[in-house]
């Protein structure tokens, strides 16, 4: 049986195609599904083995980035998605998808609330960042040890939670990626290494079980080495980029 991942989109989603190409090239069928089709009951989340919420500006990011899609998912399909996650199926939210996961409460999970709010620079910013990979149970980052480099492109990526929640998340190993200095240690809030002012340099988090993962950086834009800003310096244009492993892990986990 072929495994299938749902790439959900809403008006304004714009990274669905390249995201589908990444997971699709790993032997998993990627179907881009308009959220309207889910709302109309033509398609169900339960038909799929995994879910990706790709980047973009869903519903124009009006109200707040990811809020409208997040609340639709929460209020219309909350139970279904909680079940999806409880079944151990992987959910990946990239950039706007991370914002959606936070707005709909799947992240940080446990009923806790987070926010991805306006960058401290108060503007949209596109740059490659160094990421420190934290110890976690995240199934998407298995085998990632050393720091990696991925691009961010967002205006609202400053992750905020209450202090109590931050502690719980830390204790539950839910911090997955932190913005880092070139040498590898966490950025300590320094700009531009931490491009948005996220608390504790948080760039990506997972739920407690590790199968729901949201991150501001774009792994699909780092799938091959030739997407890296300094690929011309070395001689390995053809090799995999730092984002590849995240999709590879998702595919392997689905096939487990």
């Amino acid at each position, binding site marked *: 049986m072929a495994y299938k991942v749902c790439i959900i989109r809403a008006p304004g989603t714009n990274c669905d195609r390249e995201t589908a190409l990444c997971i699709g090239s790993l032997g998993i069928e990627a179907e881009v599904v308009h959220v309207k089709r889910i709302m109309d009951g033509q398609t169900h989340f339960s038909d799929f083995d995994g879910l990706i919420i790709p980047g973009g500006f869903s519903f124009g990011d009006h109200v*707040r980035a990811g809020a409208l899609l997040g609340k639709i998912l929460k*209020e219309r399909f909350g139970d279904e998605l909680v079940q999806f996650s409880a079944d151990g199926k992987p959910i990946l939210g990239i950039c706007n998808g991370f914002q959606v996961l936070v707005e709909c409460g799947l992240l940080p999970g446990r009923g806790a609330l987070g926010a991805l709010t306006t960058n401290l620079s108060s503007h949209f910013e596109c740059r490659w960042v160094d990421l420190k990979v934290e110890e976690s149970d995240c199934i998407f980052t298995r085998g990632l040890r050393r720091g990696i480099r991925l691009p961010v492109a967002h205006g609202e990526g400053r992750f*905020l939670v209450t202090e109590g929640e931050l502690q719980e998340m830390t204790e539950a190993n839910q911090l997955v990626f932190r913005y880092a200095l070139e040498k590898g240690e966490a950025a300590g809030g320094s700009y531009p290494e931490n491009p948005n002012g996220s608390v504790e340099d948080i760039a990506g988090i997972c739920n407690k079980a590790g199968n729901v993962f949201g991150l501001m950086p774009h792994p699909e834009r780092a799938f091959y080495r030739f997407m890296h800003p300094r690929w011309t310096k070395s001689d390995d244009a053809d090799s995999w980029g730092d984002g590849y492993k995240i999709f590879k892990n998702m595919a392997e986990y689905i096939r487990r």
Partner: protein
Amino acid sequence: MKWEVRISYKKGVLDSEGESTLSGLKTLGFNNVDNVKAAKVYLIEGNLTRRDVEEMCERLLANPVSQDYSISEVK
């Protein structure tokens, strides 16, 4: 019934838009500006009670981690 909903950053959450507007205004020579806060305003019309509008804020318009809301009726 017409309601005005104002969404602003919670105290303690840095209002970067307000801050950058402040510095922008100062650059333009408005030296007496001390503080700028940015907020988003929705005008909502319909047969709605204050409670309805509160619920809108709680369910969609404001994120309680980072945002406060205030509601006033527009006469």
